[in-house]
Structures are given as structure tokens and as C-alpha cells.
């Protein structure tokens, strides 16, 4: 599926749709998984430092023009999801600047299951309202979302009863039906079956006609190669390369020293 083929072209002199300018994200995190007042007092008694600093992104800069579909590749913990969250405005940069033109629909780390006790429909409506759509718009879309996700009457059943495939199909369906200008997809399609993947790819191709840009985080290098016309390779918070998907994948796999065999293409 050649998505890039159907994409819009930027008009001359048009500012980039997404501009990431020397962005660093540093956050301090506590030692314990669950911070409590008790542990804070205990720590104070021992004279320990409460936090350690995580540098998730270091001085990342790039521009994305209209009509691009950008694949983001890199090892676990490289900062791919952090970058997506920065573009979505969920994680503010510690330094630098992110400029985004248009409405974002984010599909970050399976973002639909806000409340597993609620039904699929309620989750869809909540997600749409949170992303700034009006109630009317969201209710009208809920049917469409359910139909595309092929979950049938399960739309009115609590999300906790869903299989992981249903869950991901619904999550994907929600984000592509919110009329996004910019679509962020984080590892969305790993659980969908083959036929849904075909359908999803077709939908993304259709979206690229109207959307301004798409970002796809994936460990499947094949998916990036097929669906993207631009790629970023991130390693330990640094932008290593911003080039065509082929060039980035080649450099990345070489970096990993495993070579481009079929195993790598599917599972890295």
C-alpha cells in the first residue's frame, strides 16, 4: 500500500505542519513506584535524594511538511513515545519549542480504554469530547467507529471484556474517525489480524488525502517502509537520522548489527 502516493503536497512557502525545535524533555521521577508521604518521611530520615533525572529527549529538531507520513523507529526506551506525547502536547518540553498546525488525533499507547468499566461507546464519546469535539459530532461518529472496528454489539459492552484485538481495533478506529489534521499512531496495529491491517492501511491512505501529516511509531520496520515517506531514527533520546525510510532503516539495522533478515523486519 503506497500511502505516500495519495498524500497532499505542500504549497511553496508554507510553514511546516509540525516543527520541533531543539526540544529536550527531562523529567524527574521518584525512586519508588508509588510515592507516598510515608516513604517521603522515611527518605528524609535517611537523607536520600528523592528523585532521579531522566533525559527522555535531548535537543531533537526536525520539521515535517504537509503530506508527510513519518515513521519513527528506534529501540525500546529510545524516546519515541515521549516524542509523540510532546507533539500531542501531553508532555511539555523542558526546553525548546514544538509548533503544531492543526487538530491532532493521538493514538498513543492504546489510548481508548480510559475506563474499562465503561462500554466501548462511552469510551469513544469520552475520548472524542476530551479531544475537543462537540457532543453532537461525537455521538454521530460513534456508530461509524464501531462499524469500522467490526466489534458489532460489543460497542455497548464494558471494555474490560474485550479481547486485545478488539481493543486495538476500536482504539485505531477512534483515532482515524476524529477528522484529524495530524494523526499520531503508536504501535497501534500489532494486534489486529491480517484483514484488519489491510483495511487499516487503506483507511490511512484515505486519511492522508485530507490529513496534513501522520506519525507512526512502529517496531515493524516493514510497516514503516510501506506506509511512510519520511523517517526519524531515535536512539537514547537523540535524533540520529532524519531521512527516507529506506536510509533510516538501513542505518538502524546496521547499527543493531543484525542485518536485514525477515526476522528483523517483523519484530524489531
Amino acid at each position, binding site marked *: 500500500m503506497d500511502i505516500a502516493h495519495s498524500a497532499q503536497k505542500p504549497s511553496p512557502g508554507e510553514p511546516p505542519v509540525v516543527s520541533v525545535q531543539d526540544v529536550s524533555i527531562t523529567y524527574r521521577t521518584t525512586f519508588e513506584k508509588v510515592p*507516598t508521604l510515608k516513604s517521603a518521611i522515611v527518605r528524609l530520615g535517611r537523607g536520600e535524594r528523592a528523585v532521579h533525572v531522566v533525559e527522555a529527549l535531548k535537543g531533537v529538531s526536525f520539521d515535517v511538511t504537509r503530506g508527510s507520513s513519518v515513521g519513527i523507529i528506534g529501540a525500546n526506551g529510545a524516546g519515541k513515545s515521549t516524542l509523540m506525547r510532546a507533539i500531542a502536547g501531553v508532555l511539555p518540553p523542558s526546553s525548546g*519549542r514544538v*509548533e503544531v*498546525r492543526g487538530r491532532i488525533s493521538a493514538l498513543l499507547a492504546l*489510548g481508548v480504554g480510559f475506563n474499562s468499566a465503561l462500554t466501548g461507546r462511552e469510551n469513544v464519546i469520552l475520548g472524542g469530547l476530551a479531544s475537543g469535539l462537540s457532543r453532537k459530532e461525537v455521538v454521530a461518529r460513534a456508530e461509524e467507529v464501531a462499524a469500522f472496528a467490526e466489534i458489532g454489539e460489543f460497542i455497548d459492552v464494558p471494555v474490560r471484556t474485550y479481547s486485545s484485538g478488539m481493543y486495538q481495533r476500536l482504539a485505531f478506529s477512534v483515532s482515524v474517525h476524529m477528522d484529524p489534521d495530524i494523526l499520531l499512531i503508536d504501535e497501534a496495529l500489532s494486534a489486529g489480524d491480517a484483514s484488519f491491517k489491510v483495511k487499516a492501511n487503506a483507511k490511512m491512505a484515505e486519511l492522508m488525502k485530507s490529513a496534513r501529516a501522520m506519525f507512526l511509531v512502529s517496531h515493524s520496520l516493514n510497516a514503516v517502509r510501506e506506509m511512510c515517506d519520511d523517517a526519524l531514527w531515535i536512539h537514547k533520546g537523540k535524533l540520529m537520522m532524519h531521512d527516507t525510510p529506506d536510509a533510516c532503516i538501513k542505518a538502524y539495522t546496521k547499527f543493531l548489527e543484525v542485518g536485514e533478515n525477515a526476522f528483523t523486519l517483523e519484530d524489531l
Partner: protein
Amino acid sequence: MARSATDTADEVHVYEPHRAGIPPLVPYFRGLWARREFAAEFSKSGIRAANTQTVFGQLWLVLNPLLLALVYYFLIAVLRGGDSGGLPRLANLTGGLFLFTFVAGSMSSGASSVTGGGRLIMNMNFPRLLMPFAAVRTAWFRFLPTLPVYVLLHLLSGAGWSWTMLLSVVFLGYAVVFAMGIAALLATLQVYFRDTSSFLPYFSRIWLYVSPILWAVHDTAGQFGTLMAINRIVNPLYSIVGGWVELSLNGVMPSPTTWVMGAVWAVVMFVVGSLLFMSRERDFTVRL
């Protein structure tokens, strides 16, 4: 901000570090207002999800504070050696207790609103104050069904009616604004100290005892001296609950101090709570 000719109808979002901590207030509150439907839906679906798990559902919302009121009623009767004070005392007790339950409910659900909304906060960009405010809305809709019960007790106790009682709505307003503030405050604390919500029940129990709920403002005239004078100033619920009960039950106009202290506490708590929340909210994502 430069915009191209093709980018007509859309927003340009700029994300930059905020050194001062507090985001620009006007756009923030505009965003908050624009997504009020989300807060309402969030609260509604929360109520629906909770109601499906109990057989009693709505009925339980009324039964719970009413049973609590009866327990305290008997407690008072025991402590006073059999003098329960009859229905007027029970009406007084329920009036105060129902409003207190609203504030305490806002506190407990507000405290867990951010930490409990993990996925939403990790994945969506919206003004986070919506979460504690939605919690207050939930507590409010749990409070509303108790009002008819209060009116019924009012009737049974033989208390009169007067136009001044309508003014009690002002104290309900104080309570709502105050609850929004304290919910935001506790939501912030809960992110940093996850045991906040474990301390809350003890805290609110003590708060219940020092507020004019189990005792009436006019009971204590001339008693406890300085302590009560301090309580009157430092305990927000002294004015808010006290004023509400005095007006709604007895039709007695509260003192000017009660009016002023209630308003001051409501505004101060709202401003402090929401500013603290807003100054920390960008940190929430990495701490969940």
C-alpha cells in the same frame, strides 16, 4: 504567529516550557469552558459505572447519608443521656450532614481524580482541572437526591417556612466553589503522595466533629470561648455548613461574619487549589 493561506480555519499549537509554572489563565479557562461537556460526560459515565455495581443504585445515595444521620442521632441521644432532641435535632443533623457529605465526597473523589484518570492524562491534551471539577460534579449529583429527604424531615420536624430560606442557596454556592478548590488541591497532593487518600477519612471525620453538624451553632453560644472563636474563623465549614443549616432549616439570617467568612473561604480555597493544580499539572503526566 505566521499562518499560511491554506491554513485558514485551524489552530496553531505552540508547546514551550513554562518557567513561571502557571499557564496563561485566559486561554486555559477558555479551554476549560470549551470542554465542559467532557467533564459532564466523564462524571455521568462514572456515576453510571458505579451504579451498575450496586442493586440499590440511586436509592443507596439517599440511604447512605440517611443511615449515617440516624447513627449520629442515636449517638447524640446516648451522649446526652436519652435526650435525643427529637425530630428538629434530626432535621438539623441531616441538613448539615448531607452538605458535609457533598464536600467530603468531593474531597475523596477529587483526590483520586487525577491518579485514577491515568490513561486519559497520558494520552490526551486537555486542561487537567476538568478532572477534579468532574469529581465535584459527581459529588453534587450524589448530593441532589438527598435534598428531598431533607425537605421531608423539615416538614416532619414542624419547622416553619420563610422567604429568607431561599438565601440558603448562596451557601450551597459557597460549598460548590469551596469543594472545587479543595478537590483540585487534594488531587495535586495525591499525585505526589499516594497515601493522601488514606489519610482523608480520618481527616474528614475530625472535620465533621468540629463543624456545626452534630451540634448546632446556637447550642454553643457562650461555650468553649476562644476555641469556638478560632473554629469560627479557621474552619471553612463552620460558616458554610452553619449558614446553610441556619437559613435552610430555621430561616434565621446568619451573622455578617458567617456570610463573609463563607465567601472568603470559598474564594480562597478555589484560587489556591486551582492555582496549585495548574502550576503542577504539566508534571502529572510523568508522575502517573
